[in-house]
């Protein structure tokens, strides 16, 4: 079981628990504002963009080339950006804080 905290663009903080699926699915199921997941999680739409809290970057691990290429063309992306459809919920993510991108 992993605890995952989302901070939305209006600074609302929501902590959810899960043990499977992707972080995007968890966010969409719980109506986290700003996470749409239009493509269902195949890394084609970039509507699940989050910034990982700098101290939690290791928990999230490194993005694949395909994800990096996608983020490279997102004006709001920075070194902490991830597409959360590419983050599988595992114990490794426990405690992670994700700020929903604009």
């Amino acid at each position, binding site marked *: 079981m992993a605890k995952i905290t989302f901070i939305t663009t209006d600074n609302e903080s929501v902590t959810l628990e899960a043990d499977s699926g992707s972080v995007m699915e968890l966010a969409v199921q719980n109506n986290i504002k700003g996470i749409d997941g239009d493509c*269902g999680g*195949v890394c*084609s*739409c970039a509507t699940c963009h989050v910034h990982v809290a700098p101290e939690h970057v290791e928990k999230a691990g490194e993005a694949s080339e*395909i994800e990096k290429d996608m983020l490279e*063309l997102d004006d709001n992306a920075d070194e902490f950006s991830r597409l959360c459809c590419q983050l599988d919920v595992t114990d490794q993510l426990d405690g992670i804080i994700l700020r929903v991108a604009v």
Partner: protein
Amino acid sequence: MKKSELSDPFEQARLEKGYGEMNDQDDPVTILLRHKDVRKCAHNWKTFQSGAVPGRIVVPSEVNIRETRQIPFEVDPPMHGGYRAIVEPWFKRPLQPEYQAKLTAQIQDLVDEVADWDSVEVVSDFALRLQSRALTLLLNIPYEEAQTWIEWGTHVFRSEDDALDGSKAAILYDYIDAQIDKAIAQPGEDLYSVLLDSELDGKKLTREEVKGVMILTFAGGRDTVINAVTNSIAYFAEHPESLTRLRNEPEITGRAIEELIRYFAPLTHMGRVVTEDTQVCEHAAKADTRVSLCWASANRDAAVFEKPNEVVLDRKLNPHVSFGFSHHNCLGATHARQIMNILVKTLADKVQSIDILASQENIEELGEFNRKVGFDSIKVKFNAR
């Protein structure tokens, strides 16, 4: 070759030089073929503009048959963002359960109706009717209105002999004018009325702006949806094992939809006008010339996709560009995805197999390339479960 197969005519040019060329009404187009270039140029709206003369970014150009600017499609940032913010919530309505329930009922009824016919011409008997009926939901208007659009035929601009038929375009424009008049006289809860009541920077949208959004809504989602639906039927006819798999593993439906949409690329490409002298894959692109972003080619780029010419139903990483990319990504994508999702689930549920009886391919001519985008007609027999 299987009838449902869509080959990739761009491969050699994509690998060797990265672009192709076509003439179009003396306003030539450099067709960009590589995934990376296509996405980069789609993102760079300053150099590769959508807000040119209305109709010019469309290939074939509609400059001679249209004056109304399609909105937000032919507007660039920052104005684009304002328009997009107005229309976006409306075009996300397909995510609502009640919308999905109505769409499901429409598609189930249609499949039930044709299931015992001896022969179904998929384009006109199935896809056109499905698309037209579903559009009544997107516009939030009475179901009966679909009959008018069905009678228009498969493409609001295209007739049998002429890719750009001005008289056919006039039918759509006159119709939309009349519908706007109706909504002004008697506002309701339909898209026309909602747009007429919307404001941008404190000012109500003008009639011309409302018309621009409506033309886009009608034109953008017509032959694209028809191609996606028709090609899906052809695919499942020749891949009954995929239908069985979707029945047994419904959890892969979302991935399957994205993969079919990648493979079909219902819109082959879309143009941009170059605003300053620049270079794309070492090819000079001069100011005031046109390039096009070839979604169909980018979707088969082996630098990005493994087995690009195969339908891999549960493809996990699928950064396809069938809905475009960046600011101008498809406004109707949510609606289109719901149509595909419900169609696939309904077929898996109700249909055992599909036999193709006869077919006529729809081939687009793009200069040096000929691309099959779907079918002019395809007769099938559905075998119910």
